């Protein structure tokens, strides 16, 4: 069998963060090859390097036996590689046929030959059973159909090697089944498929071989037939993870689980809130976003002076939870009681009212929600607290400056320059600015998303210390993080979210990394709802 | 780098011949009618009187006065504003430059609180035309020429100045064809009504569609649309201000020409000869201020004997035997 893709010693670092460390990968022609790993394991980076979208710091790439002359996407396509991105690169108002020929329009007498394009859609579509209507506008298509258009385009461009980055994240179970069957057909026809995923049941169903990445390194390269979900999970997490039986698609709602969790959640917080009065009580929080259920029946309490961590694979509702609590997403059902004697349903308040009531928010995505890039540090530190600087018509420059100096000093932001443009700060310093702004609001509740994402090691400890100090000062904290170690280090309690539901709860000290990882990957919670111990 | 010379002033004339400056209204030039008639007059001044001339077409309304003022400040001997809209501007500038001669074509007379006409400043000549007289003649011709016994009128902006055209036209039609049906419409109520060929065509097609076979327009470049309608439907139209035969050959029955060019030329000549005097100048048939066109181009379109009949009416008006109304008595 000849080799379709060969990567040797691929290294890639983003600042202090190493995404890939000397990764080797060999994929045979005519096979489906899965790349698995936890969030941040370096899967996407590796694929982007292969597709020429990113340039590796070191290492070599060969596609179908040839080395790209230049590390560009165009060159990778020329060599026969086609990438189906997680975010579709389609022109929404165009029809399928128009999208297909985009960039290499079929011309006849100088005019776009759409008839030929339509025929091409029909041909490719029929050959692979893709069933995409050539004349439909892309904006009218379902997500699954859009994905098929993406695949169709890659095939139309003559790709021999298809790379799919998390293709099933956006699909319904029926669409997933259909996609996997299609991938097998591609392999059978002599094409090669690389699929990036963290869903082990899909890997078992479709892949010939599996490569496992952990923290940027290749930790396993296995034949699917000779491995098991448990072994893969073990490799991904780094220690044994007990897996449930052969259940490719865990049920969305298992009443038994829900009851047990609800019971344990209220019981758990009851226990912990015995000493600490609850500052935040969620009851049956639900949210439908983009036609699917993003949050369902989420109920838990946060005590004053307690850090409650939310663990979960990205995209399981944690972001939505923070947005709903912060007031950035409307349409949630259920109630969110906040405060002590002055109890109020947070869902009825505007963002400004929440801030005044004592809610602070460190958003998950700093660039999107946290800092105005073109503002100075001082200006960013004024956001949401303008009243502190004097009458609205004459903000006191001295007060602004003093506040900025104080925050920069207390949170050790470098450079200590309030006039520095926020966009010039490193990730860690930018995060300290956001954290500083939010903490100096003197909140009663802090919503904190991914506090150390993209933050250098040195700053991580400082940020953690600030969060602990805040907790010790009696502030309730909801902490969402993709880093399990971070949650374990900081939290008094950890809740696990899967598909918009709380599927597990662990008290500090009782938390079991394996069990959490298992629940995050969608394992059934039945054997150990309380999260202590676990099946063999 | 560009060299910046020491600011030679605008149009500094070689020699000391008196210079003539003319300001069009915004977007006026190229209307093939009123403004272009003024331009022809200016060209004649240059070519026949050998006076240096300049003209300005302002980009915005507030520039009308500014343009007049610049010309006056440059020492032009005669400054002409083309159109009734210049009335206030000419008055303002003329007061500041008492030694410069000003002319305003279609100057709008204002009445004081006592109802008496306010005379223009002494150095302003108000060029006013008795358009109703020329309109009467083309109306008479239309009455003689119509086969459907229905004639039309398309005015530009609905103001008394244009109503004068309609009034004379109506009277002329009534003189030669008492039972003719008359349709009169206006393109709008703002200055834009003089620059809207699309609207002109719409009105023209409507009138021709209703049985009208001859339309007289007094609407600036809006009339070009009326001509278009005439050409498309095979009917006749009557031009205004200039001889507009060339705009739709074979479809222009005649034109009611207004001697804007002649009046500009005459005032310039007076300035050149040193006997300019301000005041209101009323120009009608007797002064050759207005006329109707009959030459080899449109001869074939005119009914037999029409020339003699219309000319006879013209003579009667000159002798004062026929009085042409200036306002429309709208029949209820």
């Amino acid at each position: 069998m000849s080799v379709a893709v060969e990567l040797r010693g691929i290294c890639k670092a983003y600042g202090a963060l190493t995404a890939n460390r000397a990764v080797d990968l060999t994929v045979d022609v005519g096979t489906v090859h899965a790349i698995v790993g936890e969030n941040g394991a370096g899967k996407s980076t590796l694929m982007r390097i292969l597709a020429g979208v990113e340039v590796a710091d070191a290492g070599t790439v060969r596609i179908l036996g040839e080395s790209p002359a230049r590390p560009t996407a165009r060159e990778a396509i020329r060599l026969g590689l086609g990438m189906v991105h997680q975010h579709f690169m389609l022109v929404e108002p165009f029809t399928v046929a128009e999208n297909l020929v985009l960039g290499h329009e079929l011309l006849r007498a100088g005019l776009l030959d759409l008839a030929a394009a339509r025929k091409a859609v029909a041909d490719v579509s029929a050959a692979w059973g893709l069933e995409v209507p050539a004349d439909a506008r892309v904006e009218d298509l379902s997500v699954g159909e859009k994905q098929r258009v993406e695949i169709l385009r890659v095939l139309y461009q003559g790709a021999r090697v298809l790379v799919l980055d998390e293709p099933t994240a956006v699909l319904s179970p029926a669409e997933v089944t259909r996609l996997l069957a299609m991938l097998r057909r591609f392999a059978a026809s002599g094409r090669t498929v690389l699929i990036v995923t963290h869903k082990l049941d899909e890997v078992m169903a479709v892949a010939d071989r599996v490569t496992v990445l952990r923290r940027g390194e290749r930790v396993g390269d296995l034949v699917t037939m000779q491995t098991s979900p448990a072994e893969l999970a073990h490799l991904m997490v780094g220690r044994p993870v007990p897996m449930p039986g052969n259940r490719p698609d865990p049920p969305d709602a298992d009443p038994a689980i829900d009851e047990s969790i609800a019971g344990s959640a209220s019981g758990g917080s009851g226990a912990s809130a015995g000493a600490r009065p609850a500052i935040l009580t969620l009851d049956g929080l639900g949210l439908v976003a983009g036609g699917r259920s993003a949050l369902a029946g989420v109920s838990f309490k946060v005590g004053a002076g307690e850090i409650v961590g939310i663990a979960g694979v990205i995209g399981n509702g944690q972001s939505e939870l923070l947005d709903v609590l912060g007031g950035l997403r409307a349409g949630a059902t259920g109630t969110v009681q906040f405060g002590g004697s002055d109890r109020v349903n947070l869902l009825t308040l505007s963002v400004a009212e929440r801030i005044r009531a004592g809610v602070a928010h460190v958003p998950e995505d700093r660039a999107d929600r946290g800092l105005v890039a073109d503002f100075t540090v001082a200006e960013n530190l004024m956001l949401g607290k303008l009243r502190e600087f004097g009458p609205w018509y004459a903000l006191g420059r001295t007060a602004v400056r003093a506040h900025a100096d104080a925050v920069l000093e207390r949170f050790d932001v470098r450079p200590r320059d309030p006039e520095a443009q926020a966009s010039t700060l490193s990730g860690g310093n930018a995060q300290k600015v956001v954290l500083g702004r939010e903490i100096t609001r003197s909140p009663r509740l802090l919503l904190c998303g991914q506090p150390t994402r993209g933050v250098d090691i040195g700053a991580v400890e400082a940020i953690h210390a600030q969060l602990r100090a805040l907790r010790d000062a009696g502030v309730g904290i909801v902490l969402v993080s993709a880093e399990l170690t971070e949650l374990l280090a900081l939290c008094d309690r950890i809740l696990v979210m899967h598909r918009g539901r709380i599927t597990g709860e662990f008290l500090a000290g009782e938390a079991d990394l394996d069990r959490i990882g298992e629940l995050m990957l969608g394992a059934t919670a039945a054997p150990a709802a309380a999260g202590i111990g676990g099946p063999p | 780098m560009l060299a910046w010379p020491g600011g030679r002033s605008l149009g500094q004339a070689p020699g000391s011949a008196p210079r003539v400056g003319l300001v069009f209204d915004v977007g006026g030039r190229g209307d093939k009618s009123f403004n272009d008639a003024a331009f022809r007059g200016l060209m004649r001044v240059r070519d026949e009187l050998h006076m240096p001339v300049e003209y300005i077409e302002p980009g915005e309304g507030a520039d009308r006065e500014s343009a007049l003022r610049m010309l006056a400040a440059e020492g032009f001997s005669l400054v002409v504003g083309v159109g009734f809209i210049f009335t206030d501007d000419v008055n303002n500038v003329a007061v500041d430059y008492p030694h410069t001669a000003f002319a305003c074509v279609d100057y709008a007379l204002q009445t004081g609180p006592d109802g008496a006409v306010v005379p223009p400043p002494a150095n302003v000549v108000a060029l006013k035309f008795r358009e109703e007289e020329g309109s009467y003649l083309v109306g008479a011709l239309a009455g003689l020429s119509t086969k459907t016994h229905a004639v039309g009128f398309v005015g530009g902006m609905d103001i008394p100045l244009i109503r004068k055209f309609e009034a004379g036209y109506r009277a002329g039609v009534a003189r030669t064809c008492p039972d003719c049906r008359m349709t009169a419409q206006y393109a709008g109520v703002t200055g834009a009504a003089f620059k809207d060929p699309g609207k002109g065509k719409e009105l023209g097609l409507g009138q021709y569609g209703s049985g009208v076979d001859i339309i007289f327009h007094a609407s600036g470049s809006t009339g070009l649309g009326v001509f278009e309608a005439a050409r498309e439907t095979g009917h006749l139209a009557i031009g205004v201000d200039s001889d507009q035969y060339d705009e739709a050959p074979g479809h222009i029955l005649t034109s009611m020409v207004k001697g804007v060019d002649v009046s500009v030329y005459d005032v310039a000549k007076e300035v050149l000869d040193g006997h300019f005097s301000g005041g209101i100048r009323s120009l009608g048939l007797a002064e050759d201020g207005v006329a109707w066109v009959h030459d080899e181009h449109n001869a074939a379109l005119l009914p037999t004997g029409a020339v003699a009949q219309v000319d006879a009416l013209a003579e009667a008006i000159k002798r004062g035997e026929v009085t042409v109304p200036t306002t429309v008595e709208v029949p209820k």
Partner: protein
Amino acid sequence: MSPKLASLLDRLIAPALALALAMAIGHVLILVAGASPPEVFGALLAGTWGNGYGIAQVLFKATPLVFTGLAVAIPYRAGLFNIGAEGQVVAGALAAGFVGSHLPTAAPALVAVTTCVIAAFMAGALWGALPGWLRGRFGAHEVITSIMLNFIAMALANWVVADFLAQPQTLHTAAIVDGARLTRLGSWLPAFRGSAVNTALFLVPVVVAGTAWLLNRTATGHQLRSVGLGARVAEASGVPVARVQTLAMALGGGMAGMVGVNFVQGYKGYFEDGFSGGVGFMGIAVAMLARAEPWLLIPAALLFATLSQGGLAINALVPKEIVDVLVAVVLVVAAAAGARSARREEGS
């Protein structure tokens, strides 16, 4: 060099480049038109900065351009593109003309002037707030709605003036009372005699300073800029984004409305249909050249006013379209240079 000075210099590079290139291209165009560039540029300068009247006229024309520049710049700082200044100008001027002509003739000057100024500002503000509100309430894009509101304002003014307010034989409303009229500077400064430049000019530094203060020193300004530079961050910080954007559009509209002060109270003494002549659209050019920085609007407005007045002066030498092309070139180059330096800032 302090960073502030450096960034100011950086802002000045684009306009300077624009001007130099416009002159070079103008040079070629003038040659093509068969005239002598030194003569034309000389006449342009002589007719503007070369004499008292020219200077006064440049100031007179720059005044409304600063107002419409602000009308674009303020919403721009809040992340909105106000293409509706033209309509807001009409609304403000009509209000000034209407209110001014309905005041009692005995009204003291201070009261009459102030009333008309407020009327002009409020009418423009209301007309400007409309697209802001439509955006916040229905998500209608302000570029589309503000363009459409231009036509609506002009058509409404046209109708109201023609059918109700116009004096016989004219296109304008009744004269405003004497007390509401502003003094022409020519009555104090003989060099400015004849020019329509009036005391509305003194509003320019006041309004520009006020806007600069508002943007940089007030809570409202901070919120407004945060919305413009990072609406999602602002939202997360509790800034009522829709309300702030509506306010920015209202303020901008009010500034455009103030053009009426210069034209109605300072020049004609009445509202004349169709007077605005694109001054609202020129405001876009002024604001872009000044990169929406209040104080820089003044030199930008002076530049365009010079080109406009100078266009009259050279009208006899070259077709007036050449000046239009010069204006367009200044704009295109300024926009391109602005985009380039913005990219450079991002890259650093």
